[in-house]
């Protein structure tokens, strides 16, 4: 019986261990054979990404191996794999996460003329370990019926008495809120941030629950008057398969906060080259491709995000929302303040 179980264990090892191994031997065989590859760990699972990867393969002959999973899982995975990691490129949403990957020593600095000349400096890590590829703004949406845009001004004002029991915002477990808080800590200081968190908790129309779209639906239904959401969710709702979501999306308008002050909080989805990338050159080429004009045009049309390339115009819907002043805070700061942001949320009782 022992023999059987041993045989079984062995065969399982061979069955499954191989998959990983073959992948590996592939990369190491790169130098000898001519098969060029780039291994991409990505959090984004949009069809448009697939399309761009295929385009990259066609133009360069470099095969793109995609691994799709949640960012936190990918980061934990890379951490565990350490030097043995097959990952060349990490793509994820939110600078907070990219900064986390950097702090864990998973990324490396990249010198690239192309990237530095196309992507605005504030969307690049201070040590050039990650680069923004698309932008999204975290904005206030308000009920067209009950709120006049003149009543709105800044994120800070969300804590004002005027909005008592009117504000809808999701849970603090969410990275978008954590990054917003991180930017508030950076712009206004820790003490103000603590007071702000407490004030917003007071003003919440309900306990934080659901996702960004749910906040918009709740505004449409009259549960509150204001909601804090990312821009592309509004874009998606206005193009939704679900007629009810479309209806909810149409009942709100977008307001870009802090136009008089620091500017609206923006965030990115971005990419970095893995510390132990077996195919570093290909990795850099891959990211450069994603920042190129042609790729940026595809990004701009697909997911209602803002392109980072200065010469590429955003989608029509986004243009209709008008231009706005962005917060110029270097996004690296979001990662530095992430943990403090978490602690402040917990202490303020922001679920």
């Amino acid at each position, binding site marked *: *019986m*022992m023999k059987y*179980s041993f045989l*079984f264990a062995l065969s*399982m*090892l061979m*069955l*499954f*261990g191989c*998959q*990983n*191994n073959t*992948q*590996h031997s592939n990369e*190491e065989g790169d130098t000898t054979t001519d098969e060029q590859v780039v291994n991409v760990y990505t959090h984004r*699972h949009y*069809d448009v990404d697939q399309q761009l990867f295929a385009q990259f393969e066609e133009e360069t002959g470099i095969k793109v191996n995609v*691994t*799709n*999973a*949640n960012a*936190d*899982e*990918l980061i*934990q*995975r890379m951490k*565990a*794999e350490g030097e*043995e990691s097959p990952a060349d490129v990490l793509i994820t949403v939110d600078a907070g996460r990219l900064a*986390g990957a950097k702090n*864990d020593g998973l990324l490396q600095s990249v010198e690239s003329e192309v990237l530095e000349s196309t992507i605005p400096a504030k969307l690049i890590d201070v040590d050039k370990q990650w680069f923004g590829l698309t932008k999204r703004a975290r904005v206030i949406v308000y009920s067209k019926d009950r709120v006049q845009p003149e009543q709105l001004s800044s994120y800070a004002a969300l804590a004002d008495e005027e909005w008592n029991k009117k504000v809808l915002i999701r*849970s603090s*477990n969410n990275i978008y809120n954590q990054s917003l808080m991180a930017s508030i800590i950076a712009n206004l200081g820790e003490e103000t941030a603590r007071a702000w968190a407490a004030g917003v908790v007071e003003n919440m129309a*309900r*306990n*934080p*629950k*659901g*996702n*960004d*779209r*749910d906040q918009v*639906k*709740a505004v449409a*239904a009259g*549960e509150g008057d204001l909601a804090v959401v990312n821009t592309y*969710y509004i874009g998606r709702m206005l193009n*939704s*398969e*679900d007629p*009810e*979501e479309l209806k*909810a999306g149409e009942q709100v308008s977008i307001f870009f906060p802090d136009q008089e002050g620091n500017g609206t909080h923006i965030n990115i989805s971005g990419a970095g080259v893995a510390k132990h990338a077996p195919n570093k050159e290909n990795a850099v080429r891959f990211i450069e491709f994603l920042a190129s004009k042609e790729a940026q045009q595809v990004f701009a049309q697909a997911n209602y995000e803002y392109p980072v390339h200065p010469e590429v115009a955003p989608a029509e819907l986004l243009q209709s929302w008008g231009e706005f002043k962005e917060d110029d805070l270097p996004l690296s700061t979001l990662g530095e303040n992430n*943990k403090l942001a*978490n*602690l402040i949320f*917990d*202490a303020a*009782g922001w*679920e």
Partner: protein
Amino acid sequence: MTQIARRKYYRKLRRDFDQWSWVTLLVTLFVGVPLLFIFFKLFGGAGESWGHMVKYLLPKYLTNTLLLSLICMVLTITMGVSAAWLSTRYHFPLRKSLEWLNILPLALPSYITAYAYAGIFDYGGSLQLLLQGLSLSIPKIDIMNVNGLAFVLSVSLYPYVYVACRAFFLYQSQNLIETAQVLGDSRAQRFFRLILPMARPAIVGGFILVLMEVLNDFGAAKYYGVNTFTTGIFKAWYGYREPETAVYLAALLLVIIFALILLEQWQRKRKRYHFAGKSQKKLARLEVPRGRSWGYTLIVAIPAILGFLIPVAQLIYWAVLSFHNTQWADLFTAIFQSVAIGAIAAAACVFFAILLLFTSQWNALSGVRTVSRFGALGYAIPGAVIAVGVYMPSLVVDKWIIGVVKDLFSVKIGLLLTGTATALVYAYVVRFLAVAFNPLAAGQQKMSASLSEASYLLGWGRLRTFWKLEFPLLRSAILSAFILVFIDVMKELPLTLILKPNHIQTLAVEAYQYASDERIIEAAWPALVLVLSGTIPVIFLNRLVRNE
């Protein structure tokens, strides 16, 4: 005297500790490693956020988890017991269909039920549309909270209580009822003073399974924004990036689970349950007075409607909406990989369960047999905890192997266990061994012991007897064990999320990812396939049980 006894004991130990004892202990150790690892890790100290968590989050985790358990207890027992009692005791319209319809909620993972209900009670959700159609309006019912979560978990988990009670009522209650009739109790008295208290082991047995699932739940709680122990483990691991803190939370949860089990055992100990042997006398069904019979149908149907029909209807509605937007290629890959990994894991579970079951009986030492019971403990442990316990040691082993290979052959190799299907399947074995073990043990008990003894007398060895005699006789038990594990593996979420290899996509994870990416409509197809892949085996299993 004691010395003599001790010497005697050691002599017996030396004499009887044979290869079967070894195998038993090895298998137990094999599945026990994750737990042991967590235990030893506790001495390493908690992460730096532990204090913060205790201060701000732990009270909430505790109250939420307890509240959930309490509400689920009341609801699942009410629904499970009443459905089981009425459908075993009375004739009423549609009884036969309802009997198996009440098992089907088990085919729906509870997080999928949770997504469906969120969609129903949402703004512009199905309920609102329906009421608008009838030009009715009621205030919005908020389901995304602890109470709502408890409701969802209850309607999706009550079948555990239902199944356990049904078996009891069907086979054990006839004698009791006859006795009570002789003593002149009324019908209501009989039920509340006799049947219900006597059914306690069955009810508790069923409810403990419910409780395990409630504590294990991650997907539903996460979506509803309810912070429980399991979501806390994820937060510590991924949010704070402190596996050490996650281990502390996991250990605390384990302590609570064991405390609850011990409490029940201690409480029950003072009462003894004896039945007049194995009564094969089936409970005779009574006719229901005419006017009331549809009322009975309704009572039995409500749990099935809430737990199965309504959520499935919502999923179908979404599936229609997202039909032309579905990535069919991805879906088929996910189907193929889920089924493959489910089948491999189920086969592995059955293999180890048989190994443990038989070797522990072949070995002559009762102490070894007692230790082997710990092997079936995995089911009591939430998937997230097991994932922590598998992930960390597999990394240690990997680093060691990589180091050794590097030194000996100066070759660089990749990770052999961590993040591969091997570790994932191993974790499934740890978690679901008990699921395979129980039907096998029941099947083996039904076999007459004299059968295998006769075989030994005729000169066949243990293994030969097993292959030629016991294995063929156990075939249907093996099949049930396989199917049960298969369904559980297909539904499993938290453990799979942490341990899944990147190149493998399961239906459960796909549905979860769509839902957490705010594309709930697109989660409908993977969810529906998942439901189907659970429903078919459940119906098949019901047939199998009935035919016996």
